[in-house]
């Protein structure tokens, strides 16, 4: 039987506010345990939550970018459960009336196809603290620095049909929140976490199968693996005549498999009810318009513009607009060297490779867009060959300075002086009389050999096209073999 997977994602995004969603404590990552938790975050008796307006603005921004409805009135609710890192015994979240509803996000699939993924809702809530087990014996330690950090949870419609689509959606949303500068999107630090709801059904069936939820998967790679594992597990279960149990599962990254965490029967009854400590959140149209004015050019619009204005193809445009920083970098390089194609090739090739190897983000690149732009200018004005340019790039990456300084210091200027080159070529021909003979006799393949020799003699600095031309001239009138 052919099966179809149905996937919906719930993504928790940490908002990049300076202070917590309901208190004035700082949100910076990595502080000593419990140094960024005030009385409110600790759930002390009598203290009260006060909503952070910046978090609301960020939620509105995301809602607008998702083409969603911003609720004029939304309500904070308490989600009640006991856990040591949940200080109040409830999490303040939004339940029946979320701040954002009914949006969409387009993802690009292979072959330039685009697919609309529905966004059911996005709601504001506070994060819990952390329970620490490592390094402690007989006890669990609690760090409440993260407690009260603002999150927005984005719930997609079950519109994805494969792990690949799910990852494309996740990457798109990740890129979007960074464009909007509402989250650093740092997955290692937990700023962007994913729960995946997965079910399978026979192809053509309209009803949804029983789903499982895989909790807290924190990398694109693991999401893909977890979903693929889960799809396969469910299909095998059903084909063997079994049934999928509705449950929450965990992805074990070391064994690449999901395992049961708790079933529906064991699930908590969260006893949601409106938080009487907070008034309903009312958002005036004026605030929405104010936030709308701060929206940057969004990834889709930027991608269209790159195709139109720079003549880049769909793939390159998608890659180059994946993050705002990357797109800005590319645009700066393109402007400097006045050749968008060349800029695109270098940014996606040499630069991306080096960043990847060093594990750096574009914002941390040791070669600035200005530096790369100048380097590409030197290719354009024939100062450098593409090959030597790579050497210069490496030198710049290692901190040897800008392109011109490196060229000067290493004497890498391309040899374009006709008479100087002619002298070298004559020497090379003289040193290889047999090959010259053979070439002249019609073995035209040997032109490459001579080019190589000239390059070797000039340490690669000779202008390749000029070498070709002069060699043919000197070797005597043969046609160039393409």
């Amino acid at each position, binding site marked *: 039987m052919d099966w179809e997977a149905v996937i919906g994602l719930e993504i928790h995004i940490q908002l990049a506010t300076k202070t917590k969603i309901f208190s004035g404590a700082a949100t910076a990552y990595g502080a000593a345990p419990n140094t960024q938790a005030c*009385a409110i975050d*600790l*759930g*002390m*008796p*009598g*203290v*009260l*939550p*006060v*909503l952070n307006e910046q978090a609301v603005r960020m939620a509105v921004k995301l809602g607008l970018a998702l083409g969603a409805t911003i609720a004029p009135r939304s309500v904070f609710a*308490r989600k*009640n459960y*006991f856990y*040591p890192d949940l*200080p*109040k*015994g*409830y999490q303040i979240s939004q339940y029946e009336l979320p701040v954002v509803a009914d949006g969409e996000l387009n993802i690009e699939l292979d072959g330039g196809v685009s697919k609309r993924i529905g966004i059911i809702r996005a709601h504001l809530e506070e994060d819990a603290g952390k329970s620490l087990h490592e390094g402690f014996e007989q006890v*669990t330690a*609690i760090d409440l620095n993260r407690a009260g950090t603002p999150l927005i949870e984005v719930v997609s419609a079950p519109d994805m049909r494969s792990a690949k689509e799910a990852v494309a959606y996740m990457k798109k949303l990740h890129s979007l929140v960074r464009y909007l500068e509402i989250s650093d999107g740092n997955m290692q630090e937990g700023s962007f976490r994913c729960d995946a709801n997965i079910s399978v059904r026979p192809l053509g069936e309209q009803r949804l199968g029983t789903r499982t939820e895989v909790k807290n998967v924190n990398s694109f790679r693991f999401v893909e693996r977890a979903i693929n594992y889960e799809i396969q597990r469910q299909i095998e279960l059903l084909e063997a005549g079994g049934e999928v149990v509705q449950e929450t599962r965990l992805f074990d990254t070391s064994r690449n498999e999901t395992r049961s965490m708790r079933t529906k029967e064991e699930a908590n*009854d969260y*006893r*949601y*009810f409106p938080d*009487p*400590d*907070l*008034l309903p959140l009312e958002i005036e149209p004026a605030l929405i318009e104010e936030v709308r004015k701060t929206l940057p050019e969004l990834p889709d619009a930027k991608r269209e513009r790159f195709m139109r204005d720079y003549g880049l193809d769909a793939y390159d445009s998608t890659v180059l607009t994946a993050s705002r920083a990357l797109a800005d970098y590319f645009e700066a390089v393109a402007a400097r060297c006045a050749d968008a194609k060349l800029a695109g090739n270098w940014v996606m090739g040499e630069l991306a490779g080096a960043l990847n190897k060093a594990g750096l983000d574009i914002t941390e690149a040791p070669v600035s867009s200005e530096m790369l732009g100048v380097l590409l200018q030197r290719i354009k004005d024939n100062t450098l060959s593409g090959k030597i340019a790579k050497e210069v790039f490496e030198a710049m990456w290692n901190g040897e300075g800008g392109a011109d300084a490196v060229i000067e210091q290493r004497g890498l200027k391309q040899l374009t002086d006709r008479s100087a080159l002619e002298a070298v070529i004559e020497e090379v021909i003289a040193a290889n009389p047999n090959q010259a003979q053979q070439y002249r006799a019609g073995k035209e393949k040997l032109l490459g050999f001579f080019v190589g020799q000239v390059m070797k003699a000039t340490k690669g600095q000779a202008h390749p096209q000029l070498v070709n031309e002069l060699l043919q001239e000197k070797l005597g009138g043969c046609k160039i073999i393409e």
Partner: protein
Amino acid sequence: MHKKTIAQLAAGLRSGDFTSIELTQACLERIRRLDSKLNAFITVSEEQALAAAQTADSTRAAGRGGALTGIPIAHKDIFCTQGVKTSCGSRMLDNFIAPYDAHVVERLKAAGAVMVGKTNMDEFAMGSSNETSFFGPVHNPWVDTAVPGGSSGGSAAAVAARLVPAATGTDTGGSIRQPAALCGISGLKPTYGRVSRYGMIAFASSLDQGGPMARTVEDLAWLLEVMAGFDPRDSTCVERPVPRYAAGIDAPLTGLTIGLPKEYFGAGLSPAVGDLIQAAIEVVRRLGAQIKEISLPNSHLAVPVYYVIAPAEASSNLSRYDGVRYGYRCIQPRDLEDMYERTRGEGFGAEVKRRIMVGTYVLSAGYYDAYYLKAQQVRRMIRDDFIRAFEEVDVILGPTAPTAAFDLGEKTSDPVQMYLSDIYTIAVNLAGLPALSIPAGFAAGRPVGLQLISNFFAEERLLNVGHRYQQETDWHARIPPGYE
């Protein structure tokens, strides 16, 4: 000195008849001597009190300070006080010392009031008799075997027995007004949002409101003026100017319409209380007010609605007491589950557990709509009854409680009977309105309270009527035998 009101004490301090140190020492001495009979205090903060009195005397000597500078007061042990234990009447917080002051505490401190201690109360303010306190019941100063009412029973008893001129209280379903009535003092529950709840330990957040308790309405006015006002730390606190309450209390009552809800004078009201309220009605009529019978048709639903909403909120508010960060923790827990179960099992008393269970039940999946949601709908109906009534009348008048103080132990075995002692006060909290209870006489030697209710933020009106009534009567000036 202990017989004087705040207004009289302030005059004495101002003219130099006595110092705040002397006054504070006198209070502390009375507490030492008399409180063993009452059990009104959980903590007496002598050292801090004397230091604050010293400061107040210096302030006055420098020609500064206001009406409350140097006046001793007590705080209900539900208000967090920096450096002084805040138990909330519970074993759960018997070791809890807050690193912050409640807004009300902060304001009174800034106004120069001198805190002498923290008063006894029903555990987490859940009770109408002060018998649920972990620190034992409070005795009514008028009749030793009677309850003082609750949950602000310690504050009411301390003020009635002239241990302090004033105290703070909180009112979720009548917890200021009912003990004020049963102890023969004056108590005001302000409009919801008038006084910040910051630092006031939550029982039922949508109903809780702090307010003043004193012997006269005039004193309440001075206290409210300091306690009220906007606080950005409480999102439900309303940003609205604070009137000079004491300035308007003398206005004549002519032209005022006072409504008598027929539902407050029906079955369940003890005849003796009914007679005293009738006499009070005659007093306000004599003062020029028009009397009009009105109806609050959903009154009978107030108690059942309250006992859905208040426990629901409480069950969630009290989840934080889990033994993890502060407060009581059971000895040698085996594991997390054991720690939760025994900490909460041992740390909370029976009434608190009962309400947590009720609240958990009414919020549960499958019951939420039938209980919590329905209760919220009825709550709006009750509120609408009042809004309609205030289109016709300025103030609503009735009894504070259906009976005078009952005996210790009389209702402890029957929670529903206990809950019914708040039958006339609860609707006010559900609606969010302000209400005042003032002494209106005695039934068999036990004080009886008169309740006045006004429209949202019309505390001035209540204080005006209450003060004029106290100009005509002397119930509020009576001192319990043995406490003269």
